[in-house]
Every structure is written in structure tokens, then in C-alpha cells.
């Protein structure tokens, strides 16, 4: 009887440990990534264009040297955040990654899709449904907004750099 209880406890702990680890892995990895980006000087609520991806600058595995990446770290603890990306002549997209690495929202920023910019309001309040912007409701407050723009040459990267200054990622004061 005692050994049956022992094996039962072993099996139970194995299953709990196994699935708890799997459940926690993405959020632990995302928390580390956000922290590492913060350590590299990326502020919260401001888009920063990453340096052109080269062997010397590459920090994220398998990132593309053909794309210009603009990153904003957001935190919805102090209210909704409006993310806006300026459109680009070529492939471009804005993706919202939540605290467990899921891509929860994607919009195209190609100029062919019309308008001068694309935007999304990020919130943890599922009842907030503004008319002005599409909304993405997140379960937890922290995450990453990432804009990709096709810029395979140094000249196009410089053009993307100039354009990226007009991207925004701001806490809404009155919503």
C-alpha cells in the first residue's frame, strides 16, 4: 500500500510538473525577451527601429536581414494603448504579441490597403469597444508590438528609418 501511494505521488508530480512547465514556458520566455529588450534600451510605449540585422547586430534567432523591425514594448496597466503604424510601399505589417508569445492581432501596413496608417487599440477591458479603432483585448497587460517593413537594401532601410519616426504607441489618457 505504501509503495502504491509512493508511485501515485511520483506519477502525479510528474504529470503536474510536465504540464506546468509547458504552460509556463512561453510566458517565461516572453518575460525574458521583454526584459532583455528593455536592457538594450528599448523604452515602454515608444517604437524603436532595430538596427539593420547583420551578424554583428542580430539578437533574435532567425530574424531577417531583409526587414526593418520597429518594436514597442507596451504595458496596459495604466490603461489602453493606441498603436499606430505608417503605411509602407511594399510588404509591411503590424503584429501584436501577448505575454505568452501569441500573435493576437495582425494588420497589413501595405499602401495598397489604403489610408496613411493602420491602428489598433490594445486593452485588457473586454467591454471597451471604441468606434474609432479596431480593438484587441489581451488577457495580461504586457506584450510587444512589432512592425515589419520590407527593406532589403541599405537605402530602403534608411527610408524605413525615416518613416518609422511617425509610428506611435501611446497610452490613451481619456478613453
Amino acid at each position, binding site marked *: 500500500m*505504501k509503495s502504491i*501511494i*509512493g*508511485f501515485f*505521488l*511520483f*506519477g*502525479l*508530480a*510528474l*504529470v*503536474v*510538473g*510536465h*504540464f*506546468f*512547465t*509547458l*504552460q509556463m*514556458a*512561453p510566458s517565461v*520566455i*516572453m518575460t525574458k*525577451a521583454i526584459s532583455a529588450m528593455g536592457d538594450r534600451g528599448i523604452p515602454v510605449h515608444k517604437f524603436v527601429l532595430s538596427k539593420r*540585422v*547583420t*551578424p*554583428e547586430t*542580430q539578437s*533574435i*534567432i*532567425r530574424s*531577417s*536581414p*531583409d526587414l526593418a523591425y520597429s518594436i514597442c514594448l507596451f504595458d496596459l496597466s495604466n490603461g489602453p494603448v493606441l498603436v499606430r503604424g505608417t503605411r509602407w510601399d*511594399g*510588404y509591411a*505589417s503590424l*503584429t501584436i*504579441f501577448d505575454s*505568452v*508569445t*501569441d*500573435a493576437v492581432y*495582425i494588420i497589413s501596413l501595405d499602401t495598397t490597403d489604403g489610408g496613411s496608417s493602420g491602428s489598433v487599440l490594445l486593452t485588457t477591458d473586454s467591454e471597451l469597444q471604441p468606434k474609432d479603432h479596431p480593438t484587441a483585448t489581451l488577457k495580461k497587460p504586457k506584450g*510587444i508590438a*512589432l512592425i515589419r517593413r*520590407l527593406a*532589403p537594401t541599405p537605402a530602403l532601410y534608411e527610408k524605413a528609418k525615416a518613416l518609422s519616426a511617425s509610428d506611435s504607441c501611446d497610452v490613451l489618457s481619456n478613453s
Partner: protein
Amino acid sequence: MMKLVFKYILFVGLGSAVGVLSALWMSGLIGGQRPKLAATVTSDNWTADWAIGAKGATPYMRAFVARYGLLALPKTEAVYFVRSVDDDGDQLTNKCIYRVNGKAQMAMWWSITLYNDKGYLAAGFDNAYSIDQTTLGDGAWSVEVRPNRQNDKDVWLSSANAGAFELMLRVYKPATALLGAPEKNLNPPSIKRLSCEGGKP
């Protein structure tokens, strides 16, 4: 009694340790292998996993992607094919020169990038890390992968300092037909080994 309690605590500790380690191993977080339960798509040795970025991905795949493909896009936006062997099935290496032949993809934009076996750009001297649709156009194309530039006009991929390497084919905004039948509608580039330093590797 104390001895029995200690014994049970030991069982729980051992069970937890085995559970944690097995989860890390099965999801590729230790050992580096891809999860066995992944939704793999293969075409001529180009392998992709279309569970990447999908909310329905298995917890093993989600953990793997969080570690090795952080901030990757779901398949409706982009698919990522990787190949690490030539047409004869041998590991790609910077000791050899290869010719890669391909065609345009059914997509808005596509590219081929050379990474070392850790997923990082090789520290070459030549900036030839990647080639893409804006350079190769919309028809058939052919480039060499080699450790050194042959002439200034070449469109090529540099394997300088890469060691064992892999090529990644990125396909952005893939056509619905490609997503529906990749084995039929992907144009998988071939990789022919031309020569090797000191013969076959």
C-alpha cells in the same frame, strides 16, 4: 513515520524533476530537437511547421516556437521553410559550393536567407546573407552558395564562416492555393553540390 513522509517527499521531488525535464526535452527546449507532435509540412526537404503562430498549436510546439521562433507570424501572414541538406541528402557546409535553382513563389514576397546551425547570420565579410524576390524577380532564377565571392556582378549567398548551415525560405502573404496544397504549389528550390574542399564532405 518521519521516514515515510521523507520517502513520499522524495517521490514527489523525483516525479516533478522528471516531469519538468521531459517537458523541456519534448518541446525541444533542451536537446534542440523539434517537437515530435509538430504539424510538419515538407516539400523536397524544405520543412515548415504551420502550427507556428497558431493558437491551436500543441503546448510542445508553442514552447519550441517561443524559444526558437520568437515573434514569428502565423501561416496566413508568413510561412518559413528550412532546409539543411543538399539534393543528395548531405549536410550543407561552407566547405562546399552549391547551385540553388528555383522559381518565384505564389506570394507577395519571398526570400532565402543563410543561417548557421544556431540560427544566426554567419559572420561573413560580404553582406550576402540573403536574396529575395526584389532581386531575383518573378521567373526562374539560379544563384551560387559559396564561401567567397567569384566576381562583383554575382547574385550569390555567402557561406563564409558558417560551418554547417541551413537555408530559410520565407514566404510572406502566401496564396491560399499554396497554403491549401503546399506539396503542389510551393516551388521548392533545388540545391546541387558543385564541389567541395578536399572532395565530398
